[in-house]
C-alpha cells in the first residue's frame, strides 16, 4: 500500500524519466516483498516447505564438481601438483619395545612421537576450518588459485554477484524480520497471564521466528529420528560448532536456553525471550559459581511443565570434525539426557566459528554470503546415568554416542586447549607409564 502511495506522489512531482525509474523501483519492491512473503515467511509460520532449497542444493553440487574437475585439468595441463588436504599417513608401530631395562634407544620412542605431533597433531587442527576436497567457488576455501581457467573465473564472478548482490540482502532482510518479530511478539506474550495459552503461544512464536532465521541463512536441515526429540524435564546435549546450532535445534523443537546475559542487541533479545517462557540466563558474576549454576539447572528440570534445557557441554566451538571433552557439570544433575549430533556439510559453507579470527558480526556476514548451510541432525535415544558410573564416565559415554552417530572423531582432549595450556597431569601420566615399565622389571630382578 505504501508503495502505491509513494508511486502516485512520485508521478505528480517528478519528471518523466524519474517517473519511469520510480515506477520500476516501486514494482520491483512490491514483487520482492510479495515473493518474500509467499515463499519464505508464510511457510515459516506454518512450518512447510516448497522444496526450493533442495533443488538449489542439488544444482550447486553439480557446479562444484564441474569446478573441481576444471581445476584438476588445469593443473595437469601445467604439470603441477595440486595442494590436497592431508589424509593421515599409516599409523606405524608406536609401542616401546618391552625391553626389560633402560636402554639408550628408549629415547627414540618419545622423540618420534614428539616429531610426529609437530608434523600433524589431533588437536590444533580442530580449531581451524576443515579443508575441502573439492572447491565450492568461495575464495576463502581455495588453495589452488593459479589453476583457474577463464571459464571458471567467470563462474566464480557470477557466484560473487549472486551471493553478495542477491542472496546477502535477501538474507539480511529476513534476519532482521525474524529477530524483530521475536523481540516484539515475545514481549507482547509476556503480558499474558501464566497458563497453557501463554505456553502454547510462546512455543509457536519461538518456532516461527527461528524458522525465519533458518531461511535467513538458507539452512537446509535434515532431521533424523524425530521420535527421540527431547521432552520436558530433560537436558538436551549437542556438539558445538557455531552459534547457529541454537537456531537449527530450536526451529524444530522448543527448548529453554542457558547462557550468560550479554549487553547490546543480544541482551535485548535475551530479556524479551525470557518474558514469554522461562530461559536460564546468568549474570556474568554468577557463571563462576558452579553450585548456583547446578542448583538453577536442577530446579528447572524438576519442574515438568518447563521446557527441556539445551546445553553444549564442549564449552567452545569446535570445527565439526571431532567431538572434544564434555564438561561434567550438566551430567551431574541426574535427569535424562537427550543427546543430539549435528554434522554440517562443509561443501556449501563452513559453519565453524573461529572466534579468535572473526567477531560475531563478521561471522554472520560470512555465513549469509555462503551458498547455504547444509546439515544433518540426529536425535539419539535418551540416556541416563547408570549405577556405579560417575559424571565423567557418563559424559564420555554420551560423547562417544554423539561422535559415532555424526561420524566425528571422539577426542579426550579439552576444547579449552583452543586458548589455554594443557594440564601437567597428562605429562605426569606418561612419565608414570614409562617408570612402571622400568621399575617393574627392577623388582623382578631383585627377586630372582
Amino acid at each position, binding site marked *: 500500500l505504501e508503495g502505491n502511495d509513494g508511486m502516485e506522489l512520485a508521478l505528480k512531482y517528478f519528471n518523466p524519466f524519474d517517473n519511469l525509474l520510480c515506477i520500476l523501483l516501486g514494482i520491483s519492491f512490491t514483487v520482492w516483498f510479495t515473493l518474500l512473503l509467499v515463499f519464505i515467511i508464510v511457510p515459516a509460520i506454518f512450518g512447510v516447505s516448497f522444496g526450493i532449497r533442495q533443488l538449489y542444493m542439488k544444482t550447486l553440487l553439480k557446479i562444484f564438481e564441474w569446478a573441481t574437475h576444471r581445476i584438476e585439468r588445469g593443473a595437469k595441463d601445467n604439470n603441477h601438483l595440486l595442494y590436497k588436504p592431508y589424509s593421515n599417513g599409516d599409523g606405524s608401530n608406536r609401542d616401546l619395545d618391552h625391553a626389560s631395562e633402560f636402554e639408550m634407544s628408549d629415547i627414540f620412542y618419545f622423540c618420534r612421537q614428539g616429531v610426529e605431533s609437530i608434523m600433524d597433531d589431533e588437536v590444533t587442527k580442530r580449531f581451524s576450518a576443515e579443508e575441502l576436497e573439492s572447491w565450492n567457488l568461495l575464495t576463502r576455501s581455495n*588453495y589452488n588459485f593459479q589453476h583457474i581457467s577463464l571459464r571458471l573465473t567467470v563462474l566464480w564472478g557470477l557466484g560473487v554477484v549472486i551471493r553478495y548482490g542477491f542472496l546477502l540482502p535477501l538474507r539480511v532482510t529476513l534476519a532482521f524480520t525474524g529477530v524483530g518479530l521475536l523481540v516484539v511478539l515475545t514481549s507482547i506474550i509476556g503480558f499474558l497471564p501464566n497458563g497453557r495459552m501463554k505456553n502454547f503461544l510462546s512455543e509457536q512464536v519461538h518456532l516461527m521466528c527461528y524458522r525465519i532465521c533458518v531461511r535467513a541463512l538458507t539452512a537446509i536441515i535434515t532431521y533424523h529420528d524425530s521420535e527421540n526429540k527431547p521432552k520436558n524435564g530433560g537436558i538436551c546435549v549437542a556438539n558445538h560448532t557455531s552459534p547457529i546450532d541454537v537456531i537449527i535445534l530450536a526451529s524444530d523443537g522448543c527448548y529453554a536456553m542457558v547462557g550468560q546475559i550479554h549487553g547490546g542487541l543480544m541482551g535485548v533479545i535475551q530479556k524479551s525471550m525470557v518474558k514469554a517462557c522461562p530461559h536460564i540466563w546468568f549474570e556474568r558474576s554468577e557463571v563462576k559459581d558452579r553450585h548456583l549454576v547446578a542448583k538453577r539447572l536442577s530446579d528447572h528440570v524438576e519442574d515438568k511443565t518447563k521446557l527441556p534445557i539445551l546445553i553444549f557441554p564442549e564449552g567452545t566451538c569446535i570445527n565439526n570434525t571431532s567431538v572434544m571433552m564434555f564438561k561434567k557439570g550438566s551430567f551431574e544433575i541426574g535427569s535424562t539426557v537427550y543427546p543430539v549430533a549435528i554434522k554440517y556439510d562443509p561443501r556449501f559453507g563452513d559453519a565453524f566459528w573461529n572466534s579468535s579470527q572473526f567477531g560475531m558480526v563478521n561471522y554472520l556476514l560470512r555465513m549469509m554470503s555462503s551458498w547455504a548451510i547444509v546439515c544433518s541432525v540426529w536425535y539419539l535415544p535418551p540416556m541416563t546415568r547408570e549405577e556405579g558410573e560417575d559424571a565423567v564416565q557418563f559424559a564420555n559415554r554420551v560423547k562417544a554416542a554423539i561422535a559415532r552417530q555424526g561420524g566425528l572423531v571422539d577426542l579426550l582432549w579439552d576444547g579449552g586447549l583452543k586458548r589455554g595450556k594443557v594440564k601437567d597431569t597428562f605429562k605426569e601420566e606418561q612419565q608414570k607409564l614409562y617408570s612402571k615399565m622400568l621399575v617393574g622389571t627392577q623388582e623382578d630382578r631383585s627377586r630372582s
Partner: protein
Amino acid sequence: MGSRASTLLREEEIEEIKKETGFSHSQITRLYSRFTSLDKGENGTLSREDFQRIPELAINPLGDRIINAFFPEGEDQVNFRGFMRTLAHFRPIEDNEKNKDPIASEPLNSRSNKLLFAFRLYDLDRDDKISRDELLQVLRMMVGVNISDEQLGSIADRTIQEADQNGDNSISFNEFIKVLEKVDVEQKMSIRFLH
C-alpha cells in the same frame, strides 16, 4: 590462513628445500601449511611458545628437548628452512638413496645423522659428550617423580659402564653409535608422511 599457503612459497625455494632435505613437492607444501598454522605471530618464524601450543608435544616428557633441537645455538626463532632441515632427519631412508653418489654430502636422514639427532637430545650442554649428570637429567625427565634418586643413579651408572670404552666416565658419539649398532634406527627414527 591456508588459502595463502602455496602462493607465499616460491617455486625456487621449494626446489632448494627439495635438494637439501629430500622431501617431495607435496610434502613441502603440506609442511609449509603446517608451519604457517603454527606461526601465530605471522612473522615467518616459530618461537618455542609456538611449539608448546601443540598439546601432544606439551605432554611429551622430552617435549622441551625436542623443541630445543629445532633452534640453533643461542637463537629463539626458527624459520621454515630450519624447520624443514630438522624434520628431514625423520624422513624414511629409501632404497634408491642407498646407492647414491658417495661424493655428495651425506643426506640429513642418514643413519648417522638420525643417531646424531638422538645423541644431541641427551647432550644437554652440547659438548659432544653425555656425562653421568646429563644422563641423569634426561632420565629424570622421562620418569618424572616415580623413581628414586638411588635407583635412577644405578640405572645411569650401569648404562655408562656398558657404553664407555675409553674410561672417561661419559659417552662420546662414537661410543653411542657402538651401543646402538644392533638397533633398527632407520625404522624407529622415521616417520612415513604423505608419500
